[in-house]
């Protein structure tokens, strides 16, 4: 049950609140329990047609020929839509905020880049007739080598997944192939740390599996407008995306949504609306495009896979003195929102701890897997899993209690974060203390007395001298050095940390090297916004 710990930070807060701490009914509850809440599919429209797509059977292939002759003659077929029928058949979701290049067609034209990519849309009188017509579409593929692993995708000679990004990495600020975070001298700190621990973590893609599958119904309205019932989680975002793809002003559309049968991030990609509207435009009839369950699970965008390497330096007394992270986000074949996930991930490093030397490289990588998208805390979730596993292992390594180890390393008010922002309103220490109390986990007195508001700042507020990447030879390749953590008892774990010789030349740095005095601002999505 919910318990508000009003004793903590009591002086920072006005507890005379009208809503917080009091139960309140959801405004949509009555609709939900009576079944009158209106989801996108709960609209019965006269003469509605059904849209289904022909999906690629190949993970990576050139399309030699598409033959729809037989499908066009199939019973009940009203319209076959090809890539050439889509007014602007190349888009990237975040182009609405000028972030990233258009890299994804609504319907594939010359090439497919993941298994399940839509190639042809068929609008028919019934779903059955659409399915029958789909079976009659003939597509001649020339299979291409595919790549399914983020690190394989970065190797020289790897198949180019998406020609918009020939290096298989998203390009930040039209220059950088990954997000970088530099704070202090991690390599020097690792060299003098009592223990060094490097571990590899990874997470598989996760499907949101909403009970309501993705879908939209579009219908011609008066004055040349279209009314669109949609499952989108991001209504205005979807309106603008459709306006761009269909090359019409956004006021052409009247979007109705907001009641979503489970989204969790899986309903922001605006996959069904553009084709449903285009179907309605081309036939003059209401058109429904709704994913079947297998489509949702197989081809609906998941939380992307991630692979993370963490190399930490820790002192015998438990202080983490260096954290070096290399993370790869598997974007799948197209960008969607993974570029932003990588930004968020970099912004999150090194977790809620004050570590004086932090070094992070975060890549958004293209592979021939289903394009990934948003999902609850994406960019942070897997990294937090990795960091917290790592914290447990570090605590074990130095023989410390894992709760106390976290309190010792937790950030406190006034500390300098790796992004050169002062930590404010921190509360990790209190969270750990309450968690320990609830779990009846014994903490020593000094850790019970610790506070986020005490002992921060001062020397912890200093931005350390930070060598620039161009000031030394640096490897951009994975450092495969492994710790002995899993094999040897903690007392003998003392690995001389060393940087291996560079295996590839350092990347060119067209921008002036970042000064080391802290003026570098962490790059964000919105920092690149063109006004």
């Amino acid at each position: 049950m919910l318990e508000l710990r009003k004793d903590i930070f009591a002086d920072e807060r006005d507890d005379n609140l009208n809503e917080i701490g009091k139960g309140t009914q959801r405004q949509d509850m009555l609709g939900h329990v009576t079944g009158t809440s209106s989801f996108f599919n709960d609209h019965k429209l006269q003469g509605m047609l059904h849209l289904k797509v022909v999906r690629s059977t190949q993970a990576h292939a050139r399309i030699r020929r598409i033959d729809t002759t037989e499908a066009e003659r199939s019973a009940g077929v009203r319209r076959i839509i090809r890539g050439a029928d889509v007014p602007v058949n190349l888009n990237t979701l975040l182009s609405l905020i000028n972030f990233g290049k258009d890299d994804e067609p609504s319907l594939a034209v010359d090439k497919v880049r993941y298994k399940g990519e839509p190639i042809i849309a068929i609008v028919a009188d019934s779903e059955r007739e659409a399915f029958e017509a789909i079976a009659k579409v003939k597509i001649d593929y020339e299979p291409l080598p595919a790549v399914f692993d983020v690190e394989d995708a970065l190797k020289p000679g790897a198949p180019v997944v998406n020609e918009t990004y020939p290096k298989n990495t998203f390009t930040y600020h039209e220059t950088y192939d990954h997000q970088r975070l530099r704070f202090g001298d991690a390599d020097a700190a690792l060299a003098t740390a009592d223990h060094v621990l490097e571990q590899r973590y990874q997470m598989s893609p996760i499907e949101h599996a909403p009970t309501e599958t993705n879908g939209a119904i579009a219908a011609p309205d008066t004055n040349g407008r279209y009314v669109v019932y949609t499952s989108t989680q991001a209504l205005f975002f979807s309106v603008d995306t459709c306006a761009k793809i269909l090359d019409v002003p956004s006021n052409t559309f009247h979007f109705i949504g907001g009641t979503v049968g489970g989204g969790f991030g899986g309903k922001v990609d605006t996959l069904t609306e553009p084709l449903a509207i285009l179907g309605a435009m081309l036939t003059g009839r209401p058109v429904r495009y709704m994913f079947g369950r297998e489509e949702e699970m197989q081809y609906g965008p998941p939380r992307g896979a991630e692979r993370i390497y963490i190399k930490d330096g820790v002192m015998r007394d438990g202080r983490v003195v260096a954290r070096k992270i290399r993370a790869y986000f598997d974007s799948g074949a197209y960008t969607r929102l993974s570029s932003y996930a990588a930004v968020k991930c970099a912004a999150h490093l090194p977790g809620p701890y004050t570590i004086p030397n932090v070094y992070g490289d975060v890549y958004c990588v293209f592979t021939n897997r289903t394009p990934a998208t948003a999902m609850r805390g994406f960019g942070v979730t897997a990294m937090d899993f990795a960091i917290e596993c790592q914290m447990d292992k570090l605590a074990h390594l130095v023989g410390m209690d894992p709760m106390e180890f976290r309190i010792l390393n937790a950030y406190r008010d006034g500390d300098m974060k790796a992004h050169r922002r002062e930590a404010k309103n921190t509360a990790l220490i209190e969270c750990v203390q309450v968690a320990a109390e609830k779990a009846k986990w014994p903490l020593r007195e000094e850790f019970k007395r610790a506070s986020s508001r005490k002992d921060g700042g001062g020397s912890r507020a200093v931005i350390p001298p930070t060598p620039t990447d161009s000031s030394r030879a640096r490897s951009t390749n994975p450092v495969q050095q492994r710790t002995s953590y899993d094999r040897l008892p903690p007392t003998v774990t003392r690995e001389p940390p060393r940087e291996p010789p560079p295996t590839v030349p350092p990347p060119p740095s067209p921008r002036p090297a970042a000064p080391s005095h802290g003026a570098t601002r962490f790059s964000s999505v919105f920092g690149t916004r063109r006004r």
Partner: protein
Amino acid sequence: MSKIPLQFRHNGREVAIFVDGGTNLLVALRELIGDMTPKFGCGQGGCGTCSVLVDGELVLSCLTLAETVAGRSIETLDGMKQGPNLHPLQRAFADNFAAQCGYCTPGMLMAAKALLDRNPSPSRDEVIEAISGNICRCTGYEPIINAILAAAGGRISA
């Protein structure tokens, strides 16, 4: 295309429709009767959002061939309210925060009704078993289980 005439009781009311061959009961209810309370979730029997009662028995309407319900009595969430008042299960779901997105709610309520109609005072394990074919992706099952137990408790004391 020849249509098949079909008559059945829908929430106590006699209805007659014409269906295409192979039409499932979910489509018949939603698109021909206009009862939007049963939802499409998977079409496979995996999620329970389309659950309805046929002659008091819980079935998945998406896997039921429409014409097999000829002459039978169908209950959906649309018929659960008692006049202007909420059914005790509906009230309990609302009071116990047993709905978030609301999409699984119609199926959950029908599964719960199938249970309580037969077993007015179920154990917690019986409630869990009764909704084991219904998937909820956001509320979490605990509030739903608590709501059903609360409704059952209310019924006993009433």
